[in-house]
């Protein structure tokens, strides 16, 4: 059995990507992992009691909880894992997709950062994932 990786930062497009991934998992019987990457917190990871890190971690948990609800709204029987990672967002997504031997990455066409630039078609993180990924990448808009 295979497994899909859905990346979310809580933005509108990423939630659509989560939904698309859940549908694909439902139709194929594959498992899926919801991934949220906390950006650039090498120092935070070393200081787990730092208040700023606690806020980000709390936010990450909320984002994943909402994403999980979206998955359950599609199908309750999907084998869905949650994962929080730290580091550069695109690099972590690619690294985890290779390490976990995922069959495909599902990602929004842009996330919280690209949203502000309405003329930008594909977000910078998504772009980097497409360029460096080893597996098929599904872009959801």
């Amino acid at each position, binding site marked *: 059995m295979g497994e899909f990786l859905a990346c979310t930062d809580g933005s509108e497009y990423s939630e659509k990507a989560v939904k698309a991934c859940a549908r*694909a998992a439902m139709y194929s019987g594959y498992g899926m992992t919801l991934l949220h990457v906390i950006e650039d917190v090498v120092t935070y990871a070393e200081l787990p009691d730092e208040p700023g890190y606690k806020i980000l971690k709390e936010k990450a948990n909320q984002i994943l909880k909402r994403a999980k609800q979206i998955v359950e709204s599609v199908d309750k029987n999907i084998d869905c894992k949650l994962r929080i990672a730290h580091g550069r967002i695109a690099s972590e997504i690619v690294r985890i997709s290779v390490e976990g031997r995922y069959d495909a990455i599902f990602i929004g066409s842009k996330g919280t950062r690209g949203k502000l630039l309405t003329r930008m078609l594909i977000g910078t993180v998504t772009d980097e994932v497409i360029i460096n990924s080893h597996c*098929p990448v599904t872009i959801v808009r």
Partner: protein
Amino acid sequence: MKYMVCTDGEKSAAKAIEVAAQFAKISNSDLLILHVIASEVSRATPDYDSYGTQTQKAQTIINKALEITTQFAPEITVSTRIAVGPVSAEIVRIAEEEGIAGIFIGTIGSSKLKKLLLGNVTDDVIHYAHCPVTLVR
């Protein structure tokens, strides 16, 4: 449910067809293979000779794609379609017309420089398609 894969006969497209066929297989879906003959110019004065050669070429590309699907997923239902027009616009239009659940498309090359380029067609398809687009390298 029906998926669609776009092919231009290139190597990257072959990989996309393979992935699309496997996706269709695991999710019990049909697959539509599409090739678009690029034409930005009006067909009002068609040059029949070159048009004939192009359709012939298109048929070869489609046949090659069919070989790949039978190799990787002989049990799926495959349909084919050849269209003429601006490539990305035709892909988006046909995906909508056929009620496609996901488009599969290859991204060009693996060289460092080419890696940076997604290709105009792929870029446009991602932006205008009504459904998720899967990029395969």
